[in-house]
C-alpha cells in the first residue's frame, strides 16, 4: 500500500474512533436523561459533541487533501 493511502486510512481510523466515543457518550447521556439526572446527561451530551467535532475535522482534512488533487471542471 502506498504511504498516501495508509495516511488516508489512518485518518478514517481516527474518525471512526471519535465517532465510537461519541456514540458511547450519547448512550450514557440517554440513560442519565431517562433517570432524570440532567446535569450528568448534559455533560455526556457535550462530551459527544466534542468527539463529533474531532471526527469532522479528520474528515475535513481528507476532503481538503482530495480537493487538492482532484481535476478542475473542464
Amino acid at each position, binding site marked *: 500500500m502506498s504511504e498516501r493511502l495508509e495516511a488516508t486510512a489512518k485518518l478514517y481510523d481516527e474518525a471512526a474512533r471519535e465517532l465510537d*466515543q461519541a456514540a*458511547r*457518550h450519547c448512550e*450514557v447521556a440517554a440513560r442519565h436523561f431517562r433517570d432524570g*439526572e*440532567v*446535569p*450528568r446527561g*448534559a*455533560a*455526556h451530551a*457535550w*462530551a*459527544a*459533541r*466534542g*468527539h*463529533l*467535532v*474531532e471526527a469532522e*475535522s479528520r474528515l475535513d482534512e481528507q476532503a481538503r487533501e482530495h480537493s487538492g488533487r482532484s481535476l478542475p471542471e473542464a
Partner: protein
Amino acid sequence: MSRGAYLMSLGLVPYAEAFALQRSLAGAVSQGAIPETVIFLEHPPVVTVGRRTETDVELHIPENAAVEIAETDRGGKSTFHGPGQLVCYPILDLGNHGKDVKRYVRDLEEALIRTLAAFELEGERIEGLTGVWLTRPPRKIASIGVHVSRWVTTHGYALNVDLDPTPFTEWITACGLEDTAFTTMARELDRPLSTGEVRHAAIEAIAEVFALDFEELPADEGSGLWPQPIHASLASR
C-alpha cells in the same frame, strides 16, 4: 475581565465515568466546541494511582476493603476518593491562563485556601509539597493532581470535607508521604459538614482565581445554555 465557563455539579459519579467524561470534555474545550468547564462531584470509594505511583510500596489495601482501584494519567502518586470529599475537575485552556503548569497548580492551591477561609480555616502551602495543609502540626486537607494536554487541563483537586481519613494512611501511603496526617473540614470545625455546603464557596473561589463567569448546567429541564458555535451553524442550515 471574566471569561464564560460552564459549571457542572454532577453528584456521586463512578471514577471511570468521570475520567472518560473529563477526557472527552477536554477534547471539546480544545476544539472550541464548548467553553472552559469546571466539574464538581464526589466519587464512590476508589484508590487512584498516578503516573509516579509505586504500587508495591504505596498500596496496602485490606482484602475485604470495599474500594475500587483505578489507574489514571494524572501526575502524582496514589490517593483515595470517597463520599464526603469534594472533587473539582477544571477543564481549562491554559492558553487563557498563562500557559504555566506550575502557576496553574499554585492557582488551584489558592482556590482551596480561599474555600477553607470561607469556613475560617487557615489553609497553607508547604514548601516542596503539592496540596493544601493545616499546620501546627501539619495535616493535609486537600490533594492536587493534574494532567495537561495541548494546554487543556484535566483532573484537579480533592478537598476532604467530611469523611473518614483512615484510608489515606491505612490503605495507602497517600501521595507517597510516609507518616503524614490527613484531616477533614468537619474534623477541624468539630461539626458535620456536607459537600453541598462547601461547594458554593469552592465555586466562588475558582471563579475568582481563574476569572471565570459560570453558567451552571440546569438540574432540570432548563431554558438551555449559552449559544455555542454549533447553534449558529444549525440555524443557518
